[in-house]
Every structure is written in C-alpha cells, then in structure tokens.
C-alpha cells in the first residue's frame, strides 16, 4: 500500500513511536500511529511565545536545540497595542537575544508570520514545521508538513527539536474545471469548508490536488492551506510543482526534498469539486462553514472592510483589491483598511502604485499586523457592526464586540463591498 504526502514527510522525520509495537527511524508510518518526529522549524509569536518561554524555562535546558530553526515573530499585537502587549513583545525580544536567534522579527522587519516565513525562504518542501499558531498549516502550500500546536508543545520542540504527534488520515480534495472570473483560492477553500464542515477534517490532513490546483498561483495555494485548520485539519498539503519551484528559486534558505503522494495511497475520503460551478464565496457569521455564493449575500450592509491577514495579505491579493478600487471611492459609510502582510509586500505594493490607488480611494493602509483579524487593534468592531473581511475566522466576537459580525470573502468581493457599502459582486462596480 502506498503513502500519502503527510505520511511520507512524517516517516522521513521519524525518531520513534508506537503502534502496538515500537516504531524506529526508517520505519513506514500509518494513520493512527503515535510518533516522535524531528522538526525543521519551530515558530511562535508575541501572544504564544510568552507561555512557551515560561514553559521552556521549566525544562532545565539552557539553549534552544538550534537557534537558526527557532523563529519568533511579533505580529499579533505589534506594533505594541498597549502596555501589556509591549511587555509580551519585550519578553520575546529578550529571549531571542539571549538565545541568539537570527530569525526574530520585530517591528520594522516583521510581517504577518505566515506571509513572512515563506517569503524569507525559512520553510522549504519536505519540512516538518510546528508553530504555536493554528495557521501554521499555511506552509503546506510548499509541500511541507506544517501544523499548529500550543505553547507547551512549542516549548518542548524548542528544547529538543522533536514533537509527538498522531499520524493523520488524509482527505484528498480534487478540483477540476476552469475558475470563473473573480474566483480565487479563498473562494475555493471557503466552498470546500462549506462542503465538509468546520470539523470535516478534524485530526486529518487534506491534500489539495487536481488540474485547477495545478493552475493556481502560490498566493492562492497559501490561502487554501492557511484555512485547512478551519475544517479542523492538522495540515493542508500541496504537491511541489513548477509553480512551487519558481517561488523557491533564490528564496529557499536550505536544500530541500520534494515528496510525492503514491498513486495507490490510502485516503480516508476523496472529494471531487467542479470549480467551474463556483461563484465568489462569502462565509456568514459565525462559522467559516457558512459559505454561500456572493449573489446570495448582496443585501448585507457593512461598516468595515478588512483586506489583508495571513490568509489574503500577499501582493497578489493587494493587486486584486487595487484592481477593483482603482478610480473608485470607498463608500462614506465604510472604513476600508488594507494591511500588507509583510514589509516586502508593502514595499512592492508601494512601488507598483497600489498604495497610491488605495489612498486615493479612501483606504487606510496599515503597517503589517494581525491586528483586526482577532479583534486586537487597528479595526475593532463596535456592537452591532458588520465587517466583510479577507481573514479566516468569523467566530462570535472574533473582530471585536460579541454582537458584531464578520463575513469572510476574498479580496475582490471585499474591495467591491467597500465601494458599494454592502456585500457586492465585483461586477456591481462596473468590472
């Protein structure tokens, strides 16, 4: 029997484990095995690192296992939103300095972690990556096995370079057909979560495949892998192809090995999706699985539009948004905030004239931060307010007051909605 992409990557990192009998390195692994594996990158941020550091210090270990592989990013409540956040960022900064971590990203060099790490070439295909952030699964777009864990797991991984995990079953989702205008990775993943539900892939991996995926850009793939967790998945993986290699050229910090799923791999489920039938999607409050075609959402008035985040804060996303906003004005009843995902994305957007387009349209452009996505700062909602947002979660209270609402969409719908003042199809602004 062949193996899935997740099984192959985990097997290549196997230290030991158990499946009734003991497992040893070089053994094959199967779903359900509890294994100990080496990790290539360990990530945390200004919210999760403080707990990880506290737990690390209880372990009786002086140094992290490899300073080059321990990455810390101040992005959630940075630039510091209040005194307590400043203390958390300082704690992380002090630890990074004491441990000599070259990959500690502070204000001025930081970006939203899941935009930043691939951009900096810190994750490569075949890696096992663990991060104290649930959207660590983003790096599956590069053919890495990347998964979110808690701070204590990350503390142990920082100390030992190893983690324990259960080898997941895999759901393969195959996308066929041609995308309709204004449909991108965000719409595909919202549609998929709508089909399988927020716990449809719980404890499992998802392999995204098919001709429509082969034609999808890296930005679109990052968006899809990013939201695998919103279906409960442990990881969302893509095979490495020419698109991946072109992205990695001149960027990858290390040599890498690209693994492939076997043609006779055993899948828990295979889902077939004809993308030619998919409209741009909008996920209604308060779960990402509440995805509907945008044509069924156009009555919803909005107070705010957020374009950015680890889901949709890449240059391609900003180009799409700018394409919709160019020569138009944000509705006077709407606050539209664009947040480039990294300093590089910001600079590229500036040089391309996108930032000028945004500002002329009446958009506020922010330095990179997770900020409003989790109701932290830079766009928190009042009671009764509604936002359309290119972020990844629309749980109750996610962006602010528990009585506020978040509608998830891609950058084209978010930008068109900002112009019209209610959720809108890009065609409604004359495109």
């Amino acid at each position, binding site marked *: 029997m062949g193996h899935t992409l997740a099984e192959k990557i985990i097997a290549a990192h196997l230290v030991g484990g158990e499946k009734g009998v003991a497992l040893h390195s070089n053994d094959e692994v199967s779903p359900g095995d*509890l294994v100990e594996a080496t990790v290539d990158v360990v990530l945390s941020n200004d919210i999760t690192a403080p707990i990880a550091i506290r737990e690390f210090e209880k372990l009786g270990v002086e140094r992290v296992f490899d300073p080059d592989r321990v990455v810390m990013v101040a992005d959630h409540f940075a630039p510091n939103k209040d005194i307590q956040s400043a203390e958390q960022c300082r704690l992380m900064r002090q630890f990074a300095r004491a441990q000599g971590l070259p990959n500690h990203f502070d204000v001025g060099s930081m970006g939203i972690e899941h935009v930043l790490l691939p951009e900096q070439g810190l994750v490569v295909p075949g890696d096992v990556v663990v991060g104290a952030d649930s959207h660590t699964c983003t790096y599956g777009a590069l053919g890495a096995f990347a998964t*979110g864990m808690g701070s204590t*797991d990350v503390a142990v991984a920082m*100390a030992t370079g190893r983690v324990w995990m259960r080898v997941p079953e895999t759901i393969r989702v195959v996308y066929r057909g041609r995308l309709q205008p204004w449909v991108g990775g965000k719409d595909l993943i919202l549609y998929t979560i709508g089909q399988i539900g927020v*716990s449809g892939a719980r404890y499992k991996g998802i392999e995204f495949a098919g001709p429509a995926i082969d034609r999808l850009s890296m930005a679109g793939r990052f968006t899809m892998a990013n939201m695998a967790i919103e279906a409960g998945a442990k990881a969302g993986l893509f095979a490495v192809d020419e698109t991946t290699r072109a992205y990695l050229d001149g960027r990858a910090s290390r040599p890498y090995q690209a693994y492939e799923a076997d043609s006779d791999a055993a899948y828990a489920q295979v889902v077939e999706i004809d993308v030619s039938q998919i409209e741009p999607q909008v996920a209604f409050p308060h779960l990402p699985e509440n995805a509907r075609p945008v044509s069924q959402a156009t009555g919803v008035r909005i107070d705010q539009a957020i374009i950015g985040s680890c889901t949709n804060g890449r240059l391609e996303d900003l180009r799409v948004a700018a394409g919709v906003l160019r020569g138009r004005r944000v509705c006077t009843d709407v606050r539209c905030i664009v947040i480039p995902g990294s300093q590089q994305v910001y600079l590229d957007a500036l040089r391309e004239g996108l930032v000028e387009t945004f500002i002329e349209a009446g958009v506020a452009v922010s330095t990179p931060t997770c900020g409003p996505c*989790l*109701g932290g700062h830079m766009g928190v909602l009042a009671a009764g307010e509604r936002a359309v947002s290119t972020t990844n979660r629309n749980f109750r209270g996610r962006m602010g007051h528990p009585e506020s609402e978040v509608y998830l969409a891609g950058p084209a719908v978010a930008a068109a909605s900002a112009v019209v003042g209610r959720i809108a199809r890009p065609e409604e602004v004359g495109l």
Partner: protein
Amino acid sequence: MKLMGTVWKYGDDVDTDGIIPARYLNVSEPEDLARHCMEDVDSGFARAVQAGDVIVAGENFGCGSSREHAPLAIKGSGVACVVAKSYARIFYRNAINIGLPILECPQAVEETQKGDLLAADLGAGTVTNLRTGRTYQVSPFPPFIMGIIQAGGLVDYTRERLRAQARAGAQGSTM
C-alpha cells in the same frame, strides 16, 4: 483520580475565541485569564463558576486558534474536567500538555443537563451522572498519552526524560 462537580453545558463547535477572547491575550497567567473564561459564549460563567465544576460540551470543543490560554483559562477557573463528544485537535493536545483532564464521551453529553452533578473516575475511565444514576465508559487514552497525563503534563514528562537521558549519557550508554 476521582472528581465530582456541577455541570455547565454547551453545544457544538465552541471555539477558543469564545473560551478566551483575543482581547485578553495580552496576559497569560491562568488566574488573569480565568476572569474572562467563556465570556463570549456565556457571560455569566466566570462570575458563577465554582472550583470543581465540570464543562460538558458537544462536538469539536476548542476549535479555532491554537491559544493555550483557552485550557489555561478553564483550568484557572477551577474547572475539574471537560467532558465533550469530541475535541478540536490543538485544544486536545494543549489540555493534555497542561494537565487539564478531558474526557470524550458522546452518550454522557447527550444525557447530561446544565446543573447536573457529574462524577468522573479518570483511572477507571468512567463518568457517572448522579441525577440519572447512569455510568458511562469513556474512550481510553493511548498508553503514550497516558504517560504524559500521569507525569502531570508535557513539561514534567519531558524534563524527566531529559534527566534520564543525561544520566544514561553520563554512564556512557547510547540512547
């Protein structure tokens, strides 16, 4: 280990933003987090919860963000254990890693109401509803995970392992 407490009952897909809203993630001490535990799901919980109480919930408890602040807030509230139909995987890991007892038992959840008195025997793997008198068998933990639980969490488990390795190394043996 035997526990007994009054039930707080919730539905499916309780997310970690609901358990501890991100606006409180600028702190990380369990007692600080406990003041806002479950705030966006049940605004009365943090004020009324008593040490030893039990949270009973549906499918996919703890979905969403990886924040370990969620099980820390629950533990800091004095909640003795969580019984759910199923758990989101990061929450499951986090709870085990920090030593918050969690049990998976769909039938017990179905037949339990808010305010019931629930007893759990973690060693025997049973849950008993003292109102109905019914006892349920919970899904057992694999031996490896049981090892972490018995050590008191992942940090204690790992510290012990590292010490054992250091001792073995000092004696010249290879691991």
